[in-house]
């Protein structure tokens, strides 16, 4: 086993990994940029190494500085988390070359699955159904137009090197194709240094359902059920849950998708944690979308329904251990839902809302888990993803999990910056969500629907006025002697502003 592990990441995921390391008696090494000296993951780690300026290209994405930190601190393994270098085959290779165990799959598996076109080929060779699309990355919109003519609109443009919704465009009409292709290609070039785009037929009203797979280095592989992530905005997941409401209605899908996922992963020689993403329609057809060769943001929902600690399992198999259970021993219990809490303003076109968190109250109680990377007084940096935390709940049924999530959201208070908590409250109260009638366009439709404002309780305004007067009174000096005091008049002006 590893005596000390460096976490090449920041925020909530770094903290989540630190927690498991502590339970396992393994020392943790955090890394941090100039912007993160006071970050929670640095506070909670056993050791911490500075790796450069705020820009991630010079810190969290800088392979040499991270390896150097691991050497200085005497770590023997590196956990990449998600995002940043987690799906970078060069980083996985560089870790192994420098003598560190990379806690994840082999560099070769990352490379194979990292190219979306290559991944489609590998998945197909393993027998997984795929969405019709171009086999190669394209560099011109004329090739894309030729495919779209044959397959029919709408089509989806995707970056070969893509992820996280960057370089993705939906195209409904031939005349929009050129502009969309150029936009997607330049976005992909900026985000990934690779402007190649491929084209897929768009499956309308598709659901996003993914399978968690886990393999050891001895050829054993299992799946840990599915997660449904159909609630998305700009191709970014917003709510994830397990089990999928669709799979709960068509239970035979779980085994079919699980087996297809395992075949695809095996075809890539995969080990450690991975996720095979599918598009599914309501008749139970599903198509391979891509494979994520890392721990996912939404892994906690799988942890809650399986009772497993996926990070512990990752470390166990990275150290050469056998999977401690077989497929038959995997049992799924109850229902789990995750909300990604972001520093953004849903009332103002989801503008990011960085800044200082003046107040923070986090929910707790039965079945509630908060994986947070922030604390009151922390200033959310501009340089990184604006996710503050993940709120995850578990209950015996999906219906109870929804009620529990609403209760927990009601306890959650983030003051000083805006958060998307109100968005989750409207989704979880929406009839279609509660019925499990989801597809990847669901959230856009909900956001277009007229906003029904909750009825203001007249008494509440009076209570607010009472609180306001109290707040002002407690902010004033107890004894006012000199009415012309500059301090007093400036204080009054501040109140009046």
């Amino acid at each position, binding site marked *: 086993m590893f005596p000390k592990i460096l976490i090449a990441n920041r925020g909530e995921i770094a903290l989540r990994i630190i927690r498991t390391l502590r339970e396992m008696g393994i020392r943790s090494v955090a890394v941090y940029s100039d912007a993160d000296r006071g970050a929670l993951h640095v506070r909670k780690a056993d050791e911490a190494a500075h790796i450069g300026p705020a820009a991630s290209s010079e810190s969290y994405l800088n392979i040499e500085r991270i390896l150097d930190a691991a050497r200085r601190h005497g770590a023997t393994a590196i956990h990449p988390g998600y995002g940043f270098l987690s799906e970078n085959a060069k980083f996985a290779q560089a870790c192994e070359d420098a003598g560190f165990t990379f806690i994840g799959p082999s560099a070769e598996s990352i490379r194979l699955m990292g190219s979306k076109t290559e991944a489609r080929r590998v998945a197909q060779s393993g027998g997984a159904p795929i969405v019709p699309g171009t086999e190669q990355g394209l560099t011109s919109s004329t090739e894309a137009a030729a495919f779209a003519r044959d397959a029919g609109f709408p089509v989806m443009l995707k970056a070969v090197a893509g992820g996280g919704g960057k370089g993705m465009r939906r195209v409904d009409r031939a005349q929009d194709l050129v502009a969309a292709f150029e936009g997607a290609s330049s976005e992909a070039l900026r985000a990934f240094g690779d402007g190649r785009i491929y084209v897929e037929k768009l499956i309308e009203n598709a659901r996003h359902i993914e399978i968690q797979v886990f393999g050891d280095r001895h050829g054993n592989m299992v799946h840990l059920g599915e997660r449904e992530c159909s609630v998305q905005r700009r191709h970014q997941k917003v709510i994830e849950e397990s089990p999928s409401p669709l799979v709960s209605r068509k239970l035979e899908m779980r085994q079919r998708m699980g087996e297809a996922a395992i075949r695809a992963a095996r075809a890539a020689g995969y080990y450690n944690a991975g996720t095979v993403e599918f598009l599914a329609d309501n008749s139970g057809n599903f198509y391979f979308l891509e494979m994520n060769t890392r721990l996912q943001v939404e892994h906690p929902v799988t942890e809650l329904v399986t009772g497993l600690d996926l990070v512990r399992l990752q470390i166990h198999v990275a150290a050469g251990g056998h999977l401690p259970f077989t497929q038959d021993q995997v049992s799924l219990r109850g229902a789990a839902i995750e909300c990604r809490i972001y520093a953004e303003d849903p009332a103002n076109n989801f503008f990011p809302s960085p800044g200082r968190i003046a107040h923070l109250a986090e929910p707790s109680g039965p079945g509630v888990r908060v994986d947070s990377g922030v604390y009151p007084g922390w200033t959310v940096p501009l340089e*990184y993803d604006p996710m503050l935390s993940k709120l995850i709940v578990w209950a015996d049924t999906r219906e109870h999990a929804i009620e529990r999530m609403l209760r927990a959201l009601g306890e959650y*208070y983030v003051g*000083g910056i805006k958060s998307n908590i109100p968005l989750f409250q409207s989704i979880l109260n929406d009839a279609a969500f509660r019925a499990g009638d989801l597809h990847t366009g669901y959230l856009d439709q909900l956001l277009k629907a007229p906003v029904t404002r909750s009825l203001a309780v007249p008494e509440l305004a009076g*209570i*607010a006025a009472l*609180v306001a007067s*109290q707040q002002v009174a407690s902010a004033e000096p107890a004894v006012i002697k000199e009415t012309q005091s500059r301090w007093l008049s400036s204080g009054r002006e501040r*109140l009046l502003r």
Partner: protein
Amino acid sequence: MSRIIKIDGESVAPLADATVVEVEPGVYSVLAHGLSWEARVTADEISIGDHRFRFEVEDPRQWKRTGAGAEAHGRASILAPMPGKIVRILVQVGDAVVAGQGIVVVEAMKMQNEMKAPRDGSVTAIQVKVNDSVIAGAVLAVIE
């Protein structure tokens, strides 16, 4: 008490027959008619349950003019809502634009945000170039 308390812009009398205790900094417990409420105050916002109220307190002893005249001019500036980088400029000086039309795309916190025209008019100035870094409040473009 000579103060005027405005909740969401309207003058509201504090609820009588209620007790209020500041239980944590900025957190108030209110018991009113047998009901228990918790209120949180950050800057000018009071949050009670799912409801959020803006509040302001006016003291008539200190008269000060506020608000008036903000929209007197025919110019509308489009400001950067936060620090970021200019990714694209969607219009040129002289272009006629309609309310809601995209003017400039700013990238901040890994997200691209389209800054839109607040109303109809024509673009009289564009103050930034692609790849410029801007601070919060920087004027990006002017529409008249």
